[in-house]
């Protein structure tokens, strides 16, 4: 899915203190049709975000002046701009902390540029308004969000209310990771945010019903220790 809805060139802001990473991202993003601005410090990053009004922000966590999560907090005070965290920190705690602090996605360095571009598109798509007759399609799966109907190879699939709620959340955030906390509080309420075993069992059942091969899930992907991500097939 390309970014055809927006006619203007998307603007990306890269906040990273490593010049080599900034150069590399600039080349990659410009080659894919982005206009790129960059900042080497958190302070400058927040200032540029206000000035340039980017469509997406790529944020490193280990900045010399401010912690990445602090930059995220300051951005989120006034902006809903999609933020993708780009970090060498690969521990689940760091990922979950950044995502729960308002990041839209998390990519660990070293990264694959194709994957990064896919994540950028997913993050940006989410903020664009949904069509009124929103129908999600991926391979042989069809989810009609307005009529609450799920079809697989044209046949209707019976989902329980919880399974449907989970699927709806994943579909509306397609391509983006949703943390356990986000899923649990949306579906079961704020009191259930620790009950990850609910997710384990219901996601397993959901996969049984919608995956082509439930023993090799390719639609609903487990982001270990973080959450789940729905990856739509082209």
């Amino acid at each position, binding site marked *: 899915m390309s970014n055809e809805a927006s006619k203007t060139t998307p603007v990306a802001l890269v906040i990273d203190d490593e010049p080599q990473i900034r150069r590399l991202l600039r080349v990659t993003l410009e080659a894919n049709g982005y206009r790129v601005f960059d900042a080497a410090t958190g302070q400058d990053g927040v200032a540029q975000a206000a000035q340039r009004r980017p469509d997406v922000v790529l944020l490193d966590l280990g900045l010399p002046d401010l912690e990445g999560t602090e930059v995220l907090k300051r951005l989120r005070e006034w902006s809903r701009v999609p933020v993708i965290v780009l970090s060498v920190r690969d521990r689940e705690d760091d990922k979950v902390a950044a995502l729960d602090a308002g990041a839209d996605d998390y990519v660990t360095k070293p990264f694959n540029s194709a994957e990064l571009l896919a994540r950028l598109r997913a993050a940006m798509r989410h903020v664009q308004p949904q069509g009124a007759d929103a129908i999600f399609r991926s391979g042989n799966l069809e989810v009609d969000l307005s009529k609450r109907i799920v079809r697989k190879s044209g046949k209707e699939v019976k989902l329980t209310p919880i399974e449907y709620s989970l699927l709806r959340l994943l579909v509306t955030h397609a391509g983006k990771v949703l943390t356990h906390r986000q899923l649990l509080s949306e579906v079961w309420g704020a009191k259930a945010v620790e*009950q990850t075993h609910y997710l384990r*069992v219901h996601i397993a059942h959901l996969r049984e019903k919608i995956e082509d091969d439930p*023993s090799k899930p390719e639609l609903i992907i487990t982001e270990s220790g973080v959450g789940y991500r729905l990856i739509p097939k082209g």
Partner: protein
Amino acid sequence: MADGLRCRWLAVHVESSQSLTEAAQAQLEKNLSAARELGAEVVTTTDDDLVTGLLRVAREQNVTQIIVGKPAGTGWLEWLHGDRLLKRLARASGDIDLHVVRAQKTSGTQTSRIWRPAFASNFQQYMFAAGVVAATGVLNLGLMALAGPRVPGMVFLLAVVVLALKVGRGPVLLAGALSALIWNYFFLPPRFTFIISNVEDAILFGTYFVVALVLGQLVACIRTQEQAERRREERAVALYALTRDLAEATSRDEVVWQLVSQVSRVFNAPVAIALLMNDKLAAHPDSSLTLSEKELSVADWAFRQRKAAGRFTDNLPGAEALYLPLATERKTFGVLALSLPNKNLTLAQRDLLETFARQAALILDRVELRNATEQTRLLAESEKFSRTLLNSISHELRTPLAASTSAAAALAAAEAATPEQRRELIGEIQEANARLNRVVGNLLDVARLESGKVRPRLDWHDARDLVQTTLRELQRELAAHPVKTELPAEPLLVRLDISLMQHALANLLLNSANHTPAGTLIEVQVKVADGNLVLSVADRGSGIPPELLPRIFDKFFRAPTAPTGGSGLGLTIVKGFVEAHGGIITAANRPGGGAVFTLRVPQPDKPPTVEPG
């Protein structure tokens, strides 16, 4: 003389059951101390007979020469006694040379040993003895009316014997004499005189008197010997306990702790051990006695001079405590301080204390030597380890770097290269980088394990998802190997740290893929059995040579037949992560060929139930 013959010499103290006067005791201790300072070993033995005791020690210690002092006293009794001793010694010593030297006449009053009344028992015992005799007398008055004047004698004798079991020698002798007089005065006719009228009574009386005295003496002797025996046994037990506990000590602190607690217990007094800390003598924190600056200076003297000092010694006797150096021939380790403010220290106790100090010093010496050896060994090992580490790391990091660098250079230079060649070069770079990333990841994991900071964050996971997600993430690496999974049909909730376990499983899968030819089937099975999550990865490769089985989880261990590309860290990490969960990992060869790795992670909690809906 010992110096001349270049042999060790002993000073022998034969402890008899007869108690010594305080002056004699002091003289004895002084003599023995002097002997000790001159390099003698002091041996104490218990025997009522000087000659037997002396010769027993001589035979036990393989003595070749005995030196005795010639009695220098002038009294006939002393002369008789000493002369007899010498004669007996000469007769009994056999093949041991006997030297007699002139002894100095000791100054001061010397009471003759034979006639010295033993006032060792206290006043109460005498009163008790007199009371028993008086009571028996009253009883006898009644008996005499029934049985005549001779029976009371027997009853008195009985009383004296019974008394001997209870009180010391002095009171027994008093009771013997007193009862004889009372019998004579009140019972034997003519009564109320000390006169005995007939020969029969006189003989009876005389015999009674002697029997009472001898009996009292005998019983008292047995008791004293028994006490001496008990004392010696206590000493032996204390020594045994100390030696045993010290032998188990493996560090200086343990030795000190054992020494303090044992000595405190045996002597029932506070003890301090002063050791050299930063070139200054200071009391060890386990000490039960605190040492003032002044006392520490006495300890310091004992430490530097390697001699006993303080109380009960000739060196700085004004000190409150007794200080014994903890020294071996090699080195002085510290000072043992014992504070006995209101008590005396008997020779035996002093001897025991010195033995304690000697034992402790020996053990301290041993501990120090062992630590030094251990340190040398560790140092050598760590040097060897860092060499292996550096070799391995530099190889692991440089190989992919070299590949990546040369591929990039080729790309930059080869403008004429075909698009196909370019793709190949780019593929090389990508593969090299993936490998580099894996090596760095492994090194970071090992560093985490080494730092001891791996704390699993347990949560409920579907064990099937663990396998599926890991396989999905390794798609590229496992492309050449078909993988068969055996998973339960329903979600299998297990409690584990998903990141660590996924790492562990990934490393096992990569290990199988690296060690088997392309196309070899890898089988993954997961189940819960006997309260454990059991996860196994099996292949049909050539298996693991049995002699390598015990070593495959060692750091940097690589099988000689292993293909390049491994770092020798993968299985170490698996083991570390599984053990962080309290689990175990085993490796084995499968019947029919191939290797199987099985990890078991305990699942003590029952999985929670999940409502459908």
